């Protein structure tokens, strides 16, 4: 294991921002920590970097306990949320900073700066002023600066947070390709699930300083560990239910469940694709409360009588109008029994 956290705990006053976190990252792995703001994900990075002392637990890098090792001797890279480029230095000097700190020769520095600026798609930008860069360019320079000293672990704090959507979607693909080619070990944190799923080999969902779930993007998406993770991923059809052999009792009535689902009082997730619209005289009777255009489909918000709202995914043409009366039928294949 390249990085291992063992019971890492950080308290700010009474509150545990990191609460006995165990996490392991193998070499060449790209791990993305996903969580709402205040879940402790940035503190996790700072603890690994040595910028935030642990109250208890250990950070182990390459088998060596990092207790007492100051930040500048840990050999990890950290790309800050708002980049934190040095304003009084030009692009080249920013990228060369870490190399200089490690005592590399001027020649080596110049070669490496050129190599990295080519790598991040800013060839020849070495003499430009940092203040004159666009947000996307700053992000690239920050990445080049973090990569320059070849850290054994690269950490990214909301790497694409401040960029606009189209740029973000393009850069996340570029980043993944780049890390794959370089074989970089990466620990990134983000609150954006799309970013996490696109970037990571493994996603770690955090809640209140604890790890709520860890797994491949597909695993996490298909089988959220609990109601919190499901809601955080954007699923709204989450209810308490009594699960029997073939069907579950829910506020929406009897809902079929997949074969072999665990039984008893459980949390049930119904994906929007599993909510089929049928004529109003069959199935659960609902009123269309709102509809949101989502590009490939329309999300239809349905209000049943005496039950929580349901979200359904509809083909563009088949979507009903607001105020229409419709019936609802459930598809067992799109229903997940959690925990």
């Amino acid at each position: 294991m390249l990085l291992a956290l063992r019971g890492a705990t950080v308290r700010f006053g009474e509150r545990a921002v990191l609460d006995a976190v165990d996490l392991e990252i193998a070499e060449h792995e790209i791990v993305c920590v996903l969580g709402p703001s205040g879940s402790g994900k940035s503190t996790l990075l700072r603890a690994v970097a040595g910028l935030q002392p642990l109250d208890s637990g250990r950070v182990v890098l390459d088998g060596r306990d990092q207790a007492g090792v100051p930040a500048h001797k840990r050999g990890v890279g950290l790309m800050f949320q708002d980049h934190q480029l040095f304003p009084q230095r030009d692009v080249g000097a920013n990228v060369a900073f870490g190399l200089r700190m490690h005592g590399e020769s001027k020649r080596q520095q110049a070669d490496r700066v050129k190599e990295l600026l080519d790598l991040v798609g800013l060839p020849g930008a070495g003499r430009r002023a940092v203040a004159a860069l666009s947000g996307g360019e700053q992000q690239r320079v920050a990445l080049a600066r973090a990569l320059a000293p070849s850290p054994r672990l690269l950490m990214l704090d909301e790497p694409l947070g401040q960029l606009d959507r189209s740029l973000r979607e393009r850069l996340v693909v570029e980043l993944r390709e780049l890390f794959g080619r370089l074989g970089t070990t990466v620990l990134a944190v983000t609150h954006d699930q799309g970013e996490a799923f696109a970037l990571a080999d493994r996603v770690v969902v955090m809640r209140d300083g604890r790890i709520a779930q860890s797994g491949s993007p597909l695993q996490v998406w298909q089988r959220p560990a609990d109601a919190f993770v499901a809601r955080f991923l954007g699923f709204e059809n989450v209810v308490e239910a009594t699960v029997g052999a073939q069907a579950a009792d829910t506020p929406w009535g009897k809902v079929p469940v997949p074969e072999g689902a665990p039984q008893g009082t459980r949390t049930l997730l119904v994906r929007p694709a599993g909510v089929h619209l049928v004529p109003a005289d069959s199935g659960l009777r609902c009123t269309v409360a709102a509809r949101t255009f989502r590009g490939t489909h329309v999300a239809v918000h349905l209000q049943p009588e005496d039950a929580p709202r349901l979200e359904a995914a509809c083909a563009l043409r088949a979507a009903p109008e607001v105020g229409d009366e419709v019936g609802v039928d459930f598809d067992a294949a799109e229903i997940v029994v959690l925990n």
Partner: protein
Amino acid sequence: MPVAFFAVFFAYPVAAIVARGLKADGTWHLGRIGEVLAQSDVRHVLWFTTWQAFVSTALTLIVALPGAYVFARFHFPGKQVLRAVVTVPFVLPTVVVGTAFLALVGRGGLLDELWGVRLDTTVWAILLAHVFFNYAVVVRTVGGLWAQLDPRQEEAARMLGASPLRAWRQVTLPALAPAVAAAALMVFLFTFTSFGVVQILGGPTFSTLEVEIYRQTSEIFDLSTAAVLTLIQFVAVGAILALHAWTVRRRETALRLVDASVTARRPRGAGQRALLGGVLVTVAVLLVLPLAVLVQRSLGAPGFGYYRALTSEDGGFFLVPPIEAIGNSLSYAVAATIIAVVIGSLAAVALTRRDAGRFVRGFDALLMLPLGVSAVTVGFGFLISLDEPPLDLRSSWILVPLAQALVGVPFVVRTMLPVLRAVDVRLREAASVLGASPWRVWREVDLPIVRRALLIAAGFAFAVSLGEFGATVFIARPDRPTLPVAVARLLGRPGDLNYGQAMALSTILMMVCAVALLVLERLRTDRTGEF
């Protein structure tokens, strides 16, 4: 180390004053305070000091607030130059200001020649000189903040149905009020402790506490009355400073600030043009004219006669040609600048440490004290405390730079502190993660950002020490006068030649200070500082 510096060179002299004033034959006589206060001339001085400070402050605000608005919100050609011009008076030595106004409104002055108007024995000369002096304080403190207030705040109020005046009153004025209060208190403080201006323009009739302390010490030799007066002033200044610290803290409440360069625009319409014109005329008449007259008077004798007279031995009164004062001033100023920058930087760094405790934060206010406690107090304190064992520095040249540094340190701290505080902690962390040791982090991240502020601070300390009069006049040795001391001595003697030489020497001093300031203006990027 800064603490030790202040203990020895500030706290100890002040304690000595207290002892001198209230202790006789080894016992304390607190009744002395009452006795001194009961004297009618002392009460007169107190009353005059207070009311002239009030009126000066009010006048300065009335004259300078439109200026603050114009500088904050309008673009016009020559704005940068004009901003520097406006600031020149603030760094000018009080002696120069006094002399300039003497040339304008005094006997044989410009107004006297044109219309036979003389103001030099009236209080108006003092008030005008105070406005001249403090115009920049208001323009910089209030205007600096005003320029950074987001105009969209006012626009938001307009969209919610407020008239332009109402929007200004409801949105901008509350945001500005603490800055106006802080500036007003600063002006009040400076005018309350005014020395050089009153000394030169006040004549025998008008006397502030500072002037009275000086008179009691050097003319009447009543040290214990002087000590009591110093204590009274000390208490008053302490109260003003506490009030100032409080308003400044209130000013720090979160305001939406934007880059000053985006809020200004060209004046539109007759009203705004008239306002701009009015401010320009005010600046020309009030700030530029006195200095121009000073220069013109100094050239009054044919062939630079007054300037050439400066280089000659003029028999007895000076032990050296007055021109040597330039060299003295410069060498003292260099020494004082070094001391002030070293002490001030150490103090500023100590104050920005994140683990700074209550004690250190209290020290922040303490550092401001010498600024307001008045130069005369410092000089008087040095005179009575550092002339005998354990510390006998009376015959050492270092005494003058030490006193001047004491006055300069608050400027250094005030300039460095905001910059040091503004260095983003995460910038340091970024350097640290890239492999920089703590010392390296300071050198690579903090120093490049602070370097400019350090130069500005040094410039301020230099200008302050060049023009320092109140403390220096007590302790400068007769054979080594500084420029301001030499000017004051020349003015104290009758005859046109002496008068002309004073004008010439003042002009030289003004030039040196103006050059120092123009260099500073070029270095300065942000205009939000206190001064």
